[in-house]
């Protein structure tokens, strides 16, 4: 198929690159996306670029846009909040905080921040203060923000599982402080209960906390193995280690109670971001047990930020939780149902062209993979499979369907039957092309 017309996008991008490094405000776009799309309009589940091309938006700004584009009730709430923005310390906080506490099992107390990176660092600081220990445990192919101490790396020596820099790391960066990962943390494979137990036997007394995505969305939307999170919970309790769930993605996408309510495992602290503010404004949140969160009182532990708890953000969280929790989360149930239908269309289209493809993970945070069986741990998401997934993702984009990196499918609350039809028409053609490229390459 002839790629869509991109001349206006190209011209604008050239202009932008003169003043904006790379023409984007972040680095985790596909490295070969020399010309990111620039959008001029968004309606419900659709986006329109500068050349007038229409897209079904399953990218949703890395999952943040859970309400879709131009959600009337949400916009009205934001507009109403804007009228009192000149007032600091508004009476905007109690409602969203109480709503979150009602639904999220770990949320006895909550603080708002702005970004996921920043709020995760606040969680680490709190855990260190609470336990008097320094190190944290994280897991391979999980993602917890772009701070020096927690992004990328790999374990060179399994006998001493500290993450270290390596060349070619997609999440590696020049300019990282020396030894910051090795000095502060350990890293283990996820879903490996045996390794986890052995590690805790040897190192538990060094750990302030263990941090995990409850569903490893960043590693390919991999569900926790039966009993894994429960074992992690019990080991943390036994050894006085603070358990942190990073629910930046799973947050409200799996339900307003987060993955923790769905999975029945309650962490000590939880970090939220992205979709909790509906996607229009940035808000992150640190929620947790009262006895830990109270260290933030009296400046025992500092958590600061000029815009923390800003009125527009608090109004956005309130509106998002009200919309999504209403009538027993009817909007989310409908979104999940439509997402499941869309995933079935994708699988059927792959089958029709003879491409092995599965979709895995909960419907609000699922990923597709070009393989016959679901992945069981993030280490299975190897480079060859990632390469094949990239071929499908780029083919879908050429046909007007945007997914998030690498192969995540983020539905929104306004996903409609019309969107499913739009997808169906394009999916088979896109997958036909992808199959051809994959056969040629692999």
């Amino acid at each position, binding site marked *: 198929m002839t790629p869509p017309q991109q001349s206006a996008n190209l011209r604008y991008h050239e202009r932008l690159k003169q003043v904006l490094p790379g023409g984007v405000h972040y680095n985790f776009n*596909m*490295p*070969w996306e*020399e010309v990111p799309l620039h959008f001029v309009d968004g309606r419900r589940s659709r986006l329109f670029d500068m050349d007038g091309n229409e897209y079904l938006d399953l990218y949703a700004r890395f999952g943040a846009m859970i309400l879709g584009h131009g959600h009337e009730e949400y916009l009205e709430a934001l507009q109403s909040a804007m009228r009192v923005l000149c007032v600091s310390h508004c009476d905007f906080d109690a409602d969203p905080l109480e709503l979150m506490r009602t639904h999220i099992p770990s949320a006895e107390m909550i603080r708002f921040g702005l970004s996921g990176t920043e709020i995760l660092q606040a969680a680490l600081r709190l855990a260190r203060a609470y336990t008097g220990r320094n190190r944290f445990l994280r897991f391979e192919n999980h993602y917890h923000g772009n701070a020096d101490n927690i992004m990328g790396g790999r374990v060179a020596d399994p006998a001493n599982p500290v993450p270290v820099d*390596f*060349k*070619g790391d*997609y999440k590696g960066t020049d300019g990282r402080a020396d030894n910051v990962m090795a000095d502060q943390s350990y890293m283990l494979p996820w879903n490996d209960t045996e390794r986890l137990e052995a590690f805790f036997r040897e190192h538990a007394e060094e750990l302030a906390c263990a941090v995990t995505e409850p569903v490893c969305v960043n590693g390919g939307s991999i569900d926790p193995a039966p009993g894994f999170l429960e074992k992690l919970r019990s080991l943390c309790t036994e050894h006085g280690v603070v358990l942190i769930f990073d629910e930046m993605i799973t947050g409200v996408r799996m339900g307003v109670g987060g993955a923790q309510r769905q999975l029945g495992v309650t962490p000590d602290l939880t970090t939220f971001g992205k979709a909790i503010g509906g996607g229009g404004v940035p808000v992150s949140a640190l929620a947790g047990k009262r006895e830990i969160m109270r260290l933030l009182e009296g400046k025992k532990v500092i958590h600061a930020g000029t815009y923390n708890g800003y009125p527009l953000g608090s109004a956005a969280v309130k509106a998002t939780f009200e919309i999504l929790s209403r009538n027993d989360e009817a909007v989310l149930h409908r979104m999940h149902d439509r997402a499941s239908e869309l995933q079935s269309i994708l699988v059927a289209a792959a089958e029709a062209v003879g491409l092995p493809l599965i979709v895995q993970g909960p419907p609000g945070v699922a990923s597709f993979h070009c393989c016959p069986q679901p992945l069981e741990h993030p280490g299975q998401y*190897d*480079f*060859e499979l*990632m*390469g094949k997934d*990239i*071929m499908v993702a*780029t083919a879908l984009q050429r046909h007007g369907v945007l997914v998030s990196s690498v192969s995540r499918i983020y539905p929104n609350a306004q996903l409609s039957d019309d969107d499913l039809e739009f997808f169906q028409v394009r999916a088979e053609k896109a997958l036909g092309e992808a199959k051809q*490229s994959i056969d*040629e*390459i*692999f």
Partner: protein
Amino acid sequence: MDKDHITAVLTKEIAEELSIAPGEIDDRASFMRLGVSSVQALKIINRLRKELDIDINPVALFEFKTVDDISTYLAEEHE
């Protein structure tokens, strides 16, 4: 692994993909400038993986922007 060998294999694969002579490829020119598309990049990486029997991240061609960059990286990774 010898860097010169990697450079030679990589240059050959790029030349083949772009239907140009290996001598026309500047070691220090970016792949983007050479006109390598994402599909071609993955083809080149995959052939390189098979020919050198090593694992290569599919984004490597674009993380390391020239033949020289990627050859240096692979040589160091597989010492």
